[in-house]
């Protein structure tokens, strides 16, 4: 279909200076409103004229959404904090290097300078049928082009499909799950706090959304609990080229070790399901072990049980198995 670039449909711009004002605007305009954070993904959508919001609420002037603060029980990161600020923050680097590592794997230096943690976590899927404006289930239509017999689906999911087979593209999302982060989502009525793993939803919950957030909701802060500070971390992202790319498969893991055995573990994989996938069965299996080669191999096998590849993405099964195995090997 013809795409006219560089011709962004007109919108009304609102630039609130406080979270309360932003929430009032989002409540007033409901589905018509688009929340603009770093603007990278937003302007891509707008230029393709596939998303045509009537109202844009720019968070650039909401100072209370910026910055990293030490609070009781951990770190509180404003949703508008840029990925570069996270990568360079001494507290993040020393206590939660998993998050700095994940943030540093996002795209390019320019994109990390502009992109925000909130925007990276809440971003939409990259399925190119959906991104190109095809009327798929996720876009409100009645088919999935990516799972059709001749579809190009090399980057799509092997687990958790439900009509839609797109994957979550966020590099920071699995790290937030491994760190047991809490996502603070506000609307005009009340704040809600979600565990990171519950913040992300799959198509069986709502095929049109990637997260729990509905119109009127705003992700304001991300709380990183101290419980996992200074744990043993592992992050690895496999992508087609060394820069820019979204993951094919990535893994983020946190391990607590006492007396040579794993006493706590949180492991999440992204790029394999429509949501970042926490591997609770693998966590239970490795706790109490020394994370040796036999355990790592078994963990890798367990992680891919039930995986169902599409026509072009069966490579993701050994890739996920190996990443999980490497994560476990690194634990002790």
């Amino acid at each position, binding site marked *: 279909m013809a795409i006219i*670039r*560089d*011709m*962004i*449909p*007109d*919108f*009304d*711009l609102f*630039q609130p200076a406080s979270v309360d004002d932003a929430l009032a605007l989002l409540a007033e305009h409901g589905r018509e409103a688009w929340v*603009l954070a770093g*603007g*990278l993904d937003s*302007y*891509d959508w*707008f*230029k393709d004229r596939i998303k045509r919001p009537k109202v844009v609420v*720019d968070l*650039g002037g909401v100072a209370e959404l910026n910055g990293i603060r030490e609070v009781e029980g951990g770190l509180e990161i404003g949703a508008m904090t840029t990925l*570069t600020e996270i990568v360079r923050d001494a507290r993040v680097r020393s206590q939660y290097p998993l998050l700095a590592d994940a943030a540093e794997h996002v*795209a*390019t*230096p*320019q*994109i990390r*300078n*502009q992109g925000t943690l909130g925007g990276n976590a809440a971003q939409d899927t990259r399925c190119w049928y959906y991104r190109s404006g095809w009327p798929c289930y996720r876009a409100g239509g009645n088919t999935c082009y990516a799972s059709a017999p001749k579809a190009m689906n090399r980057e799509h999911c092997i687990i958790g499909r439900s009509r839609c087979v797109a994957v979550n593209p966020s590099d920071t999302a699995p790290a937030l799950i491994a760190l047991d982060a809490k996502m603070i989502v506000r609307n005009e009525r009340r704040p809600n706090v979600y565990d990171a793993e519950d913040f992300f939803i799959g198509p069986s919950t709502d095929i049109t959304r990637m997260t729990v957030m509905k119109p009127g909701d705003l992700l304001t802060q991300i709380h990183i609990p101290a419980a996992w500070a200074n744990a043993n971390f592992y992050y690895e992202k496999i992508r087609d080229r*060394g*820069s*820019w790319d979204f993951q094919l498969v990535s893994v983020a893991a946190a391990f607590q070790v006492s007396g040579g055995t794993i006493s706590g573990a949180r492991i999440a994989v992204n790029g394999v399901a429509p949501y970042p996938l926490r591997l609770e069965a693998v966590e239970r299996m490795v706790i109490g072990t020394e994370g040796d080669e036999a355990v790592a191999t078994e963990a890798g096998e367990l992680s891919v049980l039930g995986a169902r590849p599409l026509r072009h993405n069966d490579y993701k099964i050994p890739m996920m198995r190996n990443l999980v195995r490497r994560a476990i090997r690194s634990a002790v």
Partner: protein
Amino acid sequence: MTLQPPAGLATLSAMSSTSEIVRLTVNGDNHAVGVPTHFTLLETLRYVLGLTGSKQGCDKGDCGACTVLVDGQPTLACLTPVWEAEGKQVLTVEGLATVDGPHPLQDAFDVHGAAQCGFCTPGILCSAAALLQRSPRPTRVEIQEALAGNLCRCTGYTKIYDAIEAAAVAQAGDGSSQAAG
């Protein structure tokens, strides 16, 4: 003062019912520009201010040819709403040189043959200027990481890395710390 976009943009701006007066500081000059609300910083630089050094390549954040420095940080002008640059210092490739001559990076790119078609060069110069500002004697790995968001399809990057290393030496040698912004 009312500023009109150039004639070529008449159709574009006619489509837009809303426009903004945006105050920008570009290469040290203050401007008040009247632009449609949806204009990017790049469209404003190129089509309103006539600063065509910053290139419109992919226009979606893939190529880095539009890279400018906003408050010293390499930024994709094509994905920056123009109003996000208000109150900040914007530096484009046109602002790198001073009255005393080209920026050391520009000299080094010339001497080392670091540009072929040249389309990526303005963005790469901006990324490199920010790097030298932050890290005056960068390692080659640091240079590679700093340019990870700038695509060059001609040079294979080697001469670009050589030029940036030479510029770092030249800058350190003459004792000046030429500011990037």
